[in-house]
């Protein structure tokens, strides 16, 4: 099992080959966006963080920015900074230097305003994009894939068909020597005992239970029933009644592989195989977390039809709901409603998803990429804005 990817100097493999234009703080988004919109081959990463937050969150934002810039789908990185933010530009540059990739910076307050920053950024990005375009794909083993697992806009069909089918594809990747990352801690609530039972040892099992306790305590601290927020109004319309029910369906996307390790949000796993990463379930935060953890491919199972993609990691949409497949053709990549119709078995649908993963990893575009629905991005922080 192989795909064609971009092998980087540090050995990691990209499924895409973009120049990343990354804003280091919410206040630099306008400039980063303008630069990226005018240079072919670049993608922006914009977010709402990076200043006036607790040191814990500033440290997290810094590490996530380093993780994003290190993602193998980016061949080089242009960092755009305002200049006065809490996140230290030099710390991000230093973190990225370890990847061996070209890193350039533009600081708006130093260069003298946004017009000059955009002009300087455009010239830098143009050169970087030209260099990137010379690279070619080579044959890589499936084991070089780091898969992000996601489900969203779930309904009853998610837990019955699309998530279990994705679980089979994830197991196939793990068997092939790859890595698969399960996030969405909120959607472990009520199902954490089943995940802990699959942990490779007691410590990993306890770490899973602790992640869930932390997330649930955060939700309970608000003093209300979290239903309506989780499960969402749309989940409820789709037939899901409680978070426990949603979770039991959600964890099916991790298949049956043992869980090797547990990581904090956005941390790149050292192990191969299936691992858990702390994150909430909302799309901008988890897609960003998976990208920062080094995912070069994401598969997203949906019931009611979630359109979200990410700027530089392809997001494959699968649905087991025939109505959604028919209505949202411009957003859905793989239809597994055949399982409900009884015309296809679950293992066969799982193999089809795996095949699609190999093709998309080799360059086939996802629907989200084609229609430009790739702006679901933000960094998950736990403390207040201060």
């Amino acid at each position, binding site marked *: 099992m192989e795909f064609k990817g971009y092998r980087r100097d540090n050995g990691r493999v990209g499924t895409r080959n973009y120049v990343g234009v990354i804003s280091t703080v919410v206040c630099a988004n306008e400039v980063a966006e303008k630069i990226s919109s005018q240079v072919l081959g670049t993608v922006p990463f914009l977010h709402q963080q990076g200043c006036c937050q607790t040191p814990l969150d500033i440290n997290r934002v810094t590490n996530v920015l380093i993780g994003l810039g290190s993602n193998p789908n980016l061949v080089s990185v242009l960092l755009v900074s305002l200049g006065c933010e809490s996140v230290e530009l030099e710390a991000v540059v230093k973190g990225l230097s370890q990847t061996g990739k070209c890193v350039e910076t533009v600081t708006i307050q130093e260069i003298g305003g946004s017009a000059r920053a955009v002009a300087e950024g455009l010239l830098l990005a143009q050169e970087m994009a030209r260099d990137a375009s010379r690279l070619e794909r080579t044959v890589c083993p499936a084991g070089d894939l780091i898969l992000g697992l996601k489900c969203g806009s779930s*309904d009853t069909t998610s837990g*019955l068909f699309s998530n279990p089918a994705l679980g089979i594809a994830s197991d196939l990747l793990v068997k092939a020597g790859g890595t698969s990352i399960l996030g969405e801690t909120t959607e472990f609530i009520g*199902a954490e005992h089943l995940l802990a039972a699959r942990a490779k040892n007691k410590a990993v099992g306890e770490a899973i239970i602790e992640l869930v306790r932390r997330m*649930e305590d955060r939700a309970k601290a608000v003093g209300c*029933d979290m239903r309506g927020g989780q499960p969402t109004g749309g989940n409820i319309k789709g*037939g899901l009644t409680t978070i426990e029910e949603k979770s*039991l*369906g959600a964890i099916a996307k991790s298949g049956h592989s043992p869980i090797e390790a547990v990581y904090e949000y956005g941390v790149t796993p050292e192990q191969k195989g299936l691992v858990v990463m702390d994150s909430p379930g909302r799309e901008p935060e988890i897609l960003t977390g998976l990208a920062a953890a080094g995912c070069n491919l994401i598969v997203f199972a949906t019931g009611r039809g979630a359109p979200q993609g990410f700027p530089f990691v392809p997001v494959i949409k699968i649905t087991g709901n025939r109505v959604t497949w028919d209505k949202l053709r411009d957003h859905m990549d793989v239809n597994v409603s055949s399982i409900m119709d009884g015309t296809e078995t679950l293992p066969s649908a799982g193999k089809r998803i795996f095949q699609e993963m190999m093709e998309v990893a080799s360059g086939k575009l996802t629907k989200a990429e084609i229609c430009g629905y790739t702006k679901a991005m933000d960094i998950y922080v736990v403390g207040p804005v201060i």
Partner: protein
Amino acid sequence: MRIDAILIHERDNVAVALRDIQENEEIVVGKENGSFQMRASGAIPFGHKFAIRYLEKDEKIIKYGEVIGRTTVAIPLGAHAHVHNIESLRGRGDIKDN
């Protein structure tokens, strides 16, 4: 045989409608080894759950063979089982010592 609903696990006390089911319809519920017939006592939308036996107030709801919540009122056989008669046991900041 064409099934109208599915009982996911043998321990479950609710089944899932695989199409929109009308009030008083005779339906076939598929399960791992075979199927059984019953009557829907109310309308059940596609993807929603219904009780496959009479459920008392405060009874645990089982789906996927696991607890997914608790009844807040008694649920008659064949009735729609959802947020109007089931509550979650988790993430309840509104209940002290939960």
